């Protein structure tokens, strides 16, 4: 293996975020995301800064302290890394005036790629989420779960180095949520891209991830970094295995450790 292959995808070094009003969202967070694809969950209670951390990785917010490095990505003229990232928000975040196709076309449109040149790419992305027949539909005609699939297709269509997901299924009902969890794993298996998945559900994170980073609040910090060794593909049966229960217990304990009695509302 050469040296380049060993370089990580992302290196976060002492990342801190303090807002102008004095609120300290993150203290000093250091994390290395390796080059080989992982499914990483950022798990923690509300206020632990997991969404802030995700937005910092996406470049949507600047850290107050610390460095974020993308050793393998391209750099712009003044030396800033230009990673390609996909982002899925808690809401589908679709443009209601545009068709499903046009919504997925958006990142390409901004990059000035002609519609014709990327039509196949877009249709492939829609096929991955089983929405190839809905390309000409409008968001209002779709269910909540379908809208979320469009959002995922849009994030994956550009073949990003990392897919960032900010509690994407939190607003959905449990049945839809379970189905989307399975679909997401299938997608992840075929796309072979790193996923960083923010959630506050222990069960969801254990089911999905091969690595769980637990976080604590006030100030936001990383508590533990737990590997979930169960092999993929994981079906619903995985939820009945001893390995699943053991992992859930381990993750819950790591969260309980940091929760002092006065912490819960």
């Amino acid at each position, binding site marked *: 293996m050469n040296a380049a292959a060993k370089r990580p995808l992302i290196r976060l070094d002492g990342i801190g975020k303090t807002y102008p009003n004095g609120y300290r969202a993150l203290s000093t967070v250091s994390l290395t995301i390796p080059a080989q694809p992982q499914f990483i969950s950022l798990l923690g209670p509300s206020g632990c800064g997991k969404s802030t951390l995700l937005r910092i990785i996406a470049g*949507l917010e600047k850290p107050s302290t610390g460095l974020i490095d993308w050793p393998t990505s391209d750099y712009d003229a003044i030396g800033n890394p230009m990673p390609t990232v996909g982002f899925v928000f808690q809401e589908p*975040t679709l*443009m209601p*005036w*545009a068709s499903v196709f046009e919504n997925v076309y958006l990142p390409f449109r*901004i990059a000035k790629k002609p519609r014709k040149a990327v039509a196949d790419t877009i249709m492939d992305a829609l096929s991955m989420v089983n929405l190839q027949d809905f390309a000409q539909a*409008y968001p*209002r005609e779709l269910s909540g779960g379908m809208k979320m699939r469009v959002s995922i297709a849009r994030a994956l269509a550009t073949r990003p180095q990392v897919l960032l997901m900010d509690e994407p299924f939190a607003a959905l009902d449990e049945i839809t949520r379970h189905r989307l969890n399975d679909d997401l794993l299938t997608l992840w298996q075929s796309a072979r891209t790193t996923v960083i998945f923010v959630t506050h559900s222990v069960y969801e994170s254990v089911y999905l991830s091969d690595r769980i980073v637990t976080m604590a609040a006030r100030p936001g910090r990383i508590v533990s970094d737990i590997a979930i060794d169960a092999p993929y593909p994981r079906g619903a049966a995985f939820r009945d295995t001893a390995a699943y229960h053991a992992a859930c217990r381990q993750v819950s304990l790591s969260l309980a450790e940091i929760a002092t009695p006065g912490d819960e509302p």
Partner: protein
Amino acid sequence: MRRLVETLAPGLFLLALLLAWEVGVRLGGVPSFILPPPSMIGHTLMADWPILWPALVFTCGVTACALLISAVLGLALALVMASSRWMERMLYPVAVVLQVTPVVAIAPLIIIWVQDTRLSLLICAWLVAFFPVVANATAGLRAVEPNLVSLFALYGASRWQSLIWLRLPSALPYYLAGLRIAGGLALIGAVVAEFVAGTGGTRSGLAFVIVESGYRLEMSRMFAALFLISLAGILIHALTSRLTRLLLRHWHDTAAGS
């Protein structure tokens, strides 16, 4: 059957009202210079058509021009104000002053200053129609979903790209709501200005016909003109609502509501 009744009900009710009016006036012996019966108004409408038609065209022309100019200038000013807080702080108070000053109060001044009747009426109508367009469009340009803004930033969209593909479409429902309000107000502005000009003896559109008929106690022509003004108002409302439904047909039903 139920649907049919529901569709016909408003029309039938209107017909019943007209009938009651006709019968009431005839049986009650109300003189026609106080309240003419609908049949007489209908007759006048046809008999005086050579006077009424040009007046209708004139008033509608002023209203439509005022609405069109408001639509264009309103959006332009909203874009300027939405692009910088500083501009908004400077310009918004001026727009508010124009809005809160009653058009009846400014109309005499404008009619004195501007020699051309059509132009002076147009300015009055524009003054009242302008503000709702500006206010709504500005609100719309600011009411962009924050996550969509993040998404555009994530993909490195330029200011221009964000404006064309995100902010303008997001503002559309607000802008159209502003246009619907402005349509009604433009007609009111035109009519009010015609009244002011008409009392000074300047010949113009439908409101002038009303003023003139009032002086001559020709009540049925007055009602005929009044009827045409209502008709123009309904027409403007129908057109702007239709435009809204057409442009927002893919959005949520709530956004496209008239």
